[in-house]
């Protein structure tokens, strides 16, 4: 299932089976080097598997970019408790639609990634947490899991190795916050999506209070190729410390929106122009959200940069989840800010004061401002409130709301000021909070 034409500039590692006939089936998977990484891993010691992943410079694709191999190495080897692999398929970050394709097109790749992680840390079972709206994906995954069981790739004595590993899907039910790893674990255990106090981190006390590896779908989907072709080969595809390729989701005001697998460090302007076919309708580029709505915005002038975690961080934004949102010259930053804040306010779990009250205040303020009832003082207040949230909330959702807000006001202050003189309106006329 492909919803956009591939680009010739793509480097297809994780997406290599996309578009193949019957790409969801185990037969297709096996026919295209499927489970070779796992077979190699079976011959290796756990430390060697982790070493290979470390060498690949694979960094978490869920947003934070934490080195995957290092995360695995934190799982206490000696623990007597069962260990778990938990896959984060909550995919809620606005601008992001890639995990969906990975599951839809190649579910066995994910199973293989989980199996390798299980070997590396000694896990006995895995849970794939998928957002509730993705019901069809859960069905696809369930079928793939059943097939893998039937053919001896899951369950007892996998491929005669003596390994036992079970995989289950687990549905969410509508909550962005459940993508945050500790809130996800709470949800997995049947509770409200409220994050946990950390430490302890999931590696030590995760699912059911047992040691757990928790990774994004895409992160684990990269693992089979790493074990198959070697960590070094994967690392070589990207830039230093940013191994491999990643699935960039191009959306917004662009001619050829779509999900494209590109090497880490791919230049953002090139991505927009050459992969995405340029800004739509012949308009000029105004700004880009480089990694989902939680990331500070980049002005057009800041967009000539390599899309890897470190370079984007140096530009005081984040590579995030790979959601590249392109904004043309006509985009109203005030509308954007209002819509983004509405989202975080709607999704704030309500646990801590600064996030719960801060997002609500900001949303009300922005909706009023947007409706044409703003004042100059409001502009300072927006930035101030966001700074009062930043770094002080219980979990990073508060930061995810505050960081972009700060960037909008800092980088587009003039536009907010100008907005005061304009007739209000635009696509966001409503000022109610009906959350």
């Amino acid at each position, binding site marked *: 299932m492909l919803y956009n034409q591939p680009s010739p500039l793509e480097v297809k590692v994780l997406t290599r089976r996309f578009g193949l006939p019957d790409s969801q089936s185990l037969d297709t998977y096996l026919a295209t080097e499927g489970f070779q990484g796992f077979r190699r891993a079976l011959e290796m010691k756990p430390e060697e598997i982790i070493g290979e992943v470390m060498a690949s410079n694979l960094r978490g694709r869920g947003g934070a970019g934490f080195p995957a191999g290092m995360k695995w190495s934190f799982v206490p080897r000696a623990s007597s408790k069962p260990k778990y692999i938990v896959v984060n398929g909550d995919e809620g970050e606005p601008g992001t639609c890639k995990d969906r394709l990975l599951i839809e097109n190649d579910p066995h790749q994910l199973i293989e990634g989980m199996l390798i992680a299980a070997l590396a840390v000694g896990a006995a079972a895995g849970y794939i947490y998928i957002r509730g709206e993705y019901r069809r994906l859960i069905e696809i995954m369930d079928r793939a899991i059943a097939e893998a069981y039937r053919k001896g790739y899951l369950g007892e004595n996998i491929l005669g190795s003596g390994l036992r590993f079970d995989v289950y899907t687990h549905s969410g039910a509508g909550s962005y916050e459940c993508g945050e790893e500790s809130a996800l674990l709470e949800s997995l255990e049947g509770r409200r999506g409220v994050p946990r106090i950390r430490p302890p981190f999931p590696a030590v006390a995760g699912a059911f209070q047992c040691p757990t590896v928790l990774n994004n779908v895409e992160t684990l989907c990269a693992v089979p190729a790493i074990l198959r072709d070697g960590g070094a080969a994967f690392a070589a595809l990207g830039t230093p410390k940013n191994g491999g390729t990643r699935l960039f989701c191009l959306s917004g005001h662009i001619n050829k929106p779509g999900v494209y697998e590109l090497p880490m460090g791919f230049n953002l302007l090139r991505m927009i122009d050459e992969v995405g076919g340029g800004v739509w309708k012949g308009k000029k580029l105004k700004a880009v959200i480089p990694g989902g709505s939680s990331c500070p915005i980049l002005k057009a002038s800041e967009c000539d940069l390599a899309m890897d975690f470190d370079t984007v961080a140096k530009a005081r934004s984040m590579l995030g989840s790979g959601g590249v949102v392109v904004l043309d010259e006509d985009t109203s930053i005030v509308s954007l800010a209002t819509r983004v804040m509405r989202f975080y306010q709607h999704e704030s779990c309500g646990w801590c*004061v600064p996030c719960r009250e801060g997002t609500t205040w900001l949303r009300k303020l922005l909706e009023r401002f947007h409706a044409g009832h703003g004042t100059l003082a409001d502009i300072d207040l927006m930035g101030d409130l966001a700074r009062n949230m930043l770094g002080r909330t*219980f979990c990073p959702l508060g930061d995810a709301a505050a960081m972009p807000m700060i960037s909008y006001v800092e980088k587009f202050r003039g536009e907010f000021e100008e907005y005061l003189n304009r007739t209000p309106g635009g696509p966001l006329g409503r000022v109610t909070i009906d959350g």
Partner: protein
Amino acid sequence: MADLVRLTIDGKPVEAPAGTLVIEAARCIGVEIPAFCYYPGLSLQAACRMCLVEVERAPKLLASCTLPVAENMVVRTDTPAVKQARRSMIEFLLTNHPLDCPVCDKGGECELQDMVFRYGAGESRFSEVKQHVEEKRFSPIVFFDAPRCVLCYRCVRICNEGLGVRALGIVNRGVASEIGPNRGDRLECDECGACIDICPVGALTSGIYRYQTRPWEMQHVGTICTFCANGCKTTLGVRNHRIIRGNNRDRSGINGEFLCIKGRYAFDFVHSEERLQTPLLRVNGELQPVSWSRALAAVAEKFTEVKARGGKFGVIGSNHTTNEENYFLQKFARQALGTGNIDHQRTGDVATLLGCTRSLATVADLYSTKAALVVGSDLAQQHPLYAFQLRANWRHHQARVYTVTEGPVREDQYSAGRARVQRGEELAGVERLREQLKAEPELVILFGDAIQGEAVRKLVAFGDSLGIPVKYVCLLDYSNSRGAADMGLTPEPGGGLTLPEMLAAWDLDVLWVVGANPLKNGELAADGAFVVVQDLFLTETARRADVVLPAASAYEKSGTVTSATGEVQALRAALKVMGAKPDLEIFGLIAREMGIDLGVAMPEAVFEEIRQTVRGYNVPLPVIAAGGAAQALAPEAPVAAAGRADLAESARNTLFTSGTLGRYSKALNSVEEAPGGLYR
């Protein structure tokens, strides 16, 4: 002891055991870190973010309520960044909070109000529309006003963790989150009000107290609850001789922050319209109001006459009057009336227990013992403080609690072992747990009225056979059941009549009943007996009386009472009710009227006599005077069991019933859960 960790807070060196939270370490050296959600003894939340501090080398402020101390850690709570963070948190909190402190029920004792005062943000930049939600009535006792709630979850945690009732939860998400009750729109719970007391703001308020007064208009009198034998301290808020509130904010009693519905709300029997406020005398077959002097004269005349002709007296004392009153009454009976027919309603066989062991547990022991065994009692329903203590002990110290009961009990939620038995088979159930109990380092055994006489001796023998230190609690029912037994409200050995024997004696000349209602279920055989009753209400017994003297309740007098664990504590008079007199004063007046000298009928003087003459009661005065509890020591040598063990019978009180007093409490009878049994 855990290793000590050294760190500095605001430049001051601190040493604290590993694992101590920075917020606690700071409190130890007098540095107050503000917090809403942090509450000692409950699980951690880190939700209010008031407790953020600066830690050297940490990239951002950290929540000190979840931060364990670390060697050489450098913490600052007084920097501009910390102060600014606190101000901004308060500003956030106030955005949706009504700013109507003058009319808020919590005004004057609101933690949010105090925080604004101390840490700023008096002026808000918030000019948006506030979220409005209507106030809800969860029960006649519990009201919830969502906009005032700061979502600290203290109420949810005290209910779930502290009580094990799980009646409160959090519903909705984000800014719409609010506290929800377990029956959709209402509560079914212990109605203990712990949630209300623990709420830092005016979100949870009490249907009993709300909107009647400002806290500073009340006098706060710490006294001992007059209902069950657990001996909780309750602080009565009194204005113009009316009790408006009961709570336990100072936590100075053996009950810490705990109170059940009775201690917190059932004080209202004091103001019942049915309180007797004038003496009654039977004239021409009818009880009629008369003056105190006429009533006392009638009593004295009769007592003197019957005594002179060697007639038969029966004296029944109370298990919620004070030690001083009980002592004085038995002295009156023995010395002035010359009778040994003295008794009270016995609710447990403490006499036999005292006869075979000196090893008695205190309420504090219930919180510290490594293991406890509950025999034949539904603790959470009948002895709520003890249930609370054991649960806290399990939560904080992983204590192991075992139960031997007829049916399911709340302790099952966490008990380490249990035996279900028919009533009467308890000892067999205990025996089944022997191996587990033997492996414990120590044990406290709490037992109810099913264990009497020989069974008590067998239970103690079982305890002795375990080879570990064992302490005991005999579960009794009323606020001074234990004191009644200790003070000698028991028949004179060898001849004194027991309570049922008095009722059955056809030739009884006088029956004197003080604070008891034996005719509720019983009948008086002696038709011609002259009956004198001292009570608060016209009970079944009072209706049969020839003279009824209106008595003051425990909340209207001073003196001491002894809890089931033998802890002696002082009452403090909180108010006066017109017309009623403390029983001790009444005894003194009768004695004077009869022209006899039994010593000064004043609580202090009588207590001094008790300390010198009653075995085990030589307790330290300063402790009691200062509002503390002192355990009456078990007698040096086991005493012979007084009276008959088989008379011990629990009153089967639950959280919502308590003899006569409970019947006259509107609060107790207004809740849906009353009269108990409906609910577990």
